[in-house]
């Protein structure tokens, strides 16, 4: 009895040892490049830290105080909010529209779906370059067709006009992300039981009522999911800005992450940039917590 018990314990200990062995390679990398990195980021944010400056003094909350009164950062926050508030509803509404059109039996469904999804899988650098070309003031195809249709009478420099640059970036973003919203909505639509619609038809509900009383309310989880992930994504928009506008003209398309990039890697203010990253994390806190809730995590009940 006691021998078999000690056998079992030894057995268990061996098994436990293998579990740690499975974890350790990943855990080591995770500890260095995530846990330590995060702690280091906080540490940096309380220091005046430049790569080119050997003296890196502790400055307390100075970086945070600087951030709050930095007019350029303020502009970047406004720009990012503008981008987010304009691009997300447009993307989600058009994604929903396309999903509704594609839902059910319709000829060419998978071809249409692939076409709308194409921009999502295209490298963002490529999309940004192509759109920069399309928006080009001298020979972009956008101006060409707008002039042919007599909607404008002279060429417009879309990306260097302070008032048009951000709308241009937003339109490109809608084009880029529409397919993702469509796919999420299509999955949501397929999860709605058909008998709800049958029951509604029996009760005399027309198509519009079915859409507004059944479809849209039952898509709420998809909508919330898209909203949360899109906000998190939009607040970190970077590549389009880097390629299409470099934050210009006169800072009108500068976004938070582009601003952080400049602070860290063009002006080498690592401490200040880290403080900005911490602030960005706090701004996004509500949304990331919401995002986690989608994953319905159980902490190991078995």
């Amino acid at each position, binding site marked *: 009895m006691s021998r078999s018990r000690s056998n079992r314990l030894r057995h268990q200990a061996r*098994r*436990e040892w293998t579990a740690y062995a*499975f974890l350790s390679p*990943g855990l080591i990398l*995770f500890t260095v*490049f995530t*846990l330590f*990195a*995060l702690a*280091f*980021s906080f540490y940096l944010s309380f220091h005046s830290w430049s790569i080119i400056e050997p003296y890196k003094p502790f400055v307390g909350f100075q970086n945070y105080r600087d951030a709050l009164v930095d007019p350029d950062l303020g502009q970047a926050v406004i720009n990012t909010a503008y981008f987010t508030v304009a691009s997300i509803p447009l993307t989600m509404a058009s994604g929903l529209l*396309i999903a509704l*059109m594609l839902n059910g039996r319709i000829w*060419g469904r998978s071809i249409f779906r*692939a*076409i*709308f999804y194409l921009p999502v*899988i295209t*490298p*963002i650098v490529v*999309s*940004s*370059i*192509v*759109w*920069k*070309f*399309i928006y*080009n003031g001298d020979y972009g*195809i956008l101006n*060409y067709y707008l002039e042919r249709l007599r909607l404008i009478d002279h060429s417009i420099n879309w990306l260097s006009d302070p008032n048009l640059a951000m709308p241009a970036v937003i339109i490109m973003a809608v*084009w880029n992300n529409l*397919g*993702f919203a469509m796919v999420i909505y299509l*999955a*949501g639509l*397929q*999860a709605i039981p058909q008998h709800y619609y049958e029951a509604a038809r029996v009760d005399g509900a027309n198509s519009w009522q079915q859409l507004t009383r059944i479809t849209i309310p039952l898509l709420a989880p*998809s909508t919330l*999911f898209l909203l949360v992930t899109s906000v*998190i994504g939009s607040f*970190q928009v*970077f*590549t389009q800005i*880097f*390629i299409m506008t470099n934050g210009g003209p006169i800072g009108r398309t500068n976004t938070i992450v582009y601003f*952080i990039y400049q602070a*860290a*890697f063009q002006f080498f203010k*690592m401490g200040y940039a*880290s403080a900005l*990253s911490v602030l960005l*994390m706090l701004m996004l*806190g509500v949304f990331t917590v919401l*995002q986690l809730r*989608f*994953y319905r*995590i159980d*902490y*190991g009940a078995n």
Partner: protein
Amino acid sequence: MTVTEPRQIAAARPGPPPPARRHKRISPAEVVLLVVRYVILVAGAIICIVPFFWMVSASFQHEGDIFSWPIQWIPKHPTLGNYRSFFGSGGHIGVWLANTTLVAVVTTVAQLFLDSLMAYAFAKRRFPGRKWIFALFLATLLVPGQMTIIPNYLILKHIPFAGGNDALGQGGHGWLDSYAGLIVPAVVSAFGIFLIRQYMVSIPDELLDAARVEGASEFRIFWSIVMPLCKPVLAASAIFTFGYFWNDFYWPLIVMSSPQHYTLSLGLALFIGAHKTAWTLLMAGSVIATIPVLVVFLIFQRYFVSGIAMTGIK
């Protein structure tokens, strides 16, 4: 939302209509609705695809032709010159293509392997600290990617004994401007672990116990029993990870500094800065960068859709 597995999606897809419907005549209102539907779809599809047409068309044109109006959708003087000069002696694009492939493939394989190992431990093993460690991984999902960019840049710079560094990580550039710097920090993904673990939890323990009774080692169980059962989730993660690292721009921008180490995205982006008006060349490069992801997408389309459902809504 319960669409988490491809099988369920297939089941949720509407089947053929009941036979009675087939004989029903279509009302005029339905015809109008169908026409509206196609008008919206076709218009949207054209807007979606026009930039790609223009990219391909311009990539086969001479520099002068793209400036001349009317626009030539079908090049009047088609040329392969743009592709030739990109692949030719002057351009690095062959190297960038190889670099991107190397980085995307190695990162994907390594990430899937390490994530699966950890997911297995979290899903199927009991050991002290399990919940605590797993919760720690999950907590980092709350952190935006931007948070680790700056510290990891400094960590890479000070990796001991690498890139001319001494034992204290001083003196050289460490893992900056190296493939290791691009790959190693990206190899563990808390989200990947979470995703694979969720899938592994559903594998019955009896299967594993049976193998243990037979005397199989833990690694053998993991590799020969659990991994084959996880193919759907592994395929979905592989495609997403590959796509992510193929397209990634921010991290390569920060890590790499010599042109022979660039990835395609980085190379193209910095090329645009150096040659502001070489649009036809850029379009050729863009086509080259897009084709591989396009091929992967077309081959694995069904995994994309199921993968989005898997990663997306639960």
